[in-house]
């Protein structure tokens, strides 16, 4: 699954961080940044409700390929600036985090079935 697939699946909008079509290696859904830092996977897609600079900085620490913020939360200008500086695509989705997890899971399963 690529970032473009994530945006399509989650009816998302790329808000900052620049375009990328990197492949998603793993999906982490969490609002506790220390939990995210515990994750060992590569090319993580971070799903979070945390609309703050720290979500993007944490994503950068773990080498995440993109960050999705849910419930169409307004994203602070500083968060967008951090995403632009670090080059991490920041996506806004109207869905809840739970709904996003379900949609992405179903999309991944469909992808596996070909």
């Amino acid at each position: 699954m690529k970032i473009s697939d994530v945006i399509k699946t989650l009816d998302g909008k790329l808000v900052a961080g620049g375009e990328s079509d990197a492949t998603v290696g793993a999906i982490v859904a969490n609002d506790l940044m220390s939990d995210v830092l515990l994750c060992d996977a590569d090319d993580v897609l971070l799903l979070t409700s945390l609309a703050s600079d720290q979500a993007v900085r944490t994503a950068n620490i773990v080498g995440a390929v993109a960050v999705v913020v849910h419930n169409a939360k307004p994203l602070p200008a500083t968060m967008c600036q951090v995403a632009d500086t670090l080059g991490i695509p920041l996506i806004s989705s109207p869905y809840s985090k739970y709904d996003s997890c379900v949609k992405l899971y179903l999309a991944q399963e469909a992808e596996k079935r070909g």
Partner: protein
Amino acid sequence: MSEYEPKILSGGESRSDDEIMADYVGKDSPLVVMELLQRFRVKDVMRGSNIISLTREDTLRTAKERLRDNKISGLPVLDGKRLFGMVSVNQIIRALEGGWLDDPCSKHMSTSLVVLEEDMPLTFALKYFHNYTFGRFPVLNKEHEFVGIISQRDMTNVLLKELSNEVSRLEGKSNAAVRPAEASARSEGAIPYYSMRQFLVVRNDMANAGKAANEIKRMLKDVGISAKVIRRVAVAAYELEINVCIHSLGGSITVVLDSNKVTIISKDKGPGIQDVEWACQDGTSTANDWIRSMGFGAGMGLSNCKRVADVFNIKSSVPGGTTVICEFNI
């Protein structure tokens, strides 16, 4: 060794770099000044071009005129890139007194020279200026060729300029330009054998928390550390930076890189941790709702650091403060 070969003397003496630096910049000087001294190498500061010099055949009268015309107090005696000696105002005074101003430099120049190597950290130059009374030192490369000269004035000029940049950076007014030490490390694609950088962390400044960890990550990537090690270092640096920001009165995060390990040191000004053992357990936290609203305060910070580091040490005193040291083998 020929009679013209300079004798290279050792810097000698047992005082530590920190003690020497403290003498130079004062014990209470901002840590950023200390960091600047650690960051630079001799070649970043020395004058490497337009060096006024003498040959062995030049007379001391010529030397006197060059010293006077250029308002300097010492000149290297060179043959191409080879350094044979130094002529300073002292030799000129003696020549005036003794009446041998028209003798060749080779006859009276100093040949017992103290030199610096271009790759030495600037702290070595500082130590040499402290140990010797010379106003300048010739600088040689690994092949023992003359590459420049360093004076106290050169050091002061470069440090003041860089300090000014650093202050601007700290004030958020500029995106710091690539610093010489980092640039050379990058261009060589090699890990510098020693470098240190310190970041100040301000209490409750969540807008900037995490910047140091991200900068450390970038810095380690630039010098070619493996991605797996970088990730572990960055996780610890980030957790510690957040801890200093949200739990302490402020402090610093320092990264020290040498040939076999990366060390992250977090140091704060208090109030200290009552029960360190308890604080290092998973899920224990004194965080308030504000901290939790920022995505932290799950009580995983110190245990995350322990998990990723090869060596983890913590010391805390109430109300003195907490120091955490995490080491990572590379």
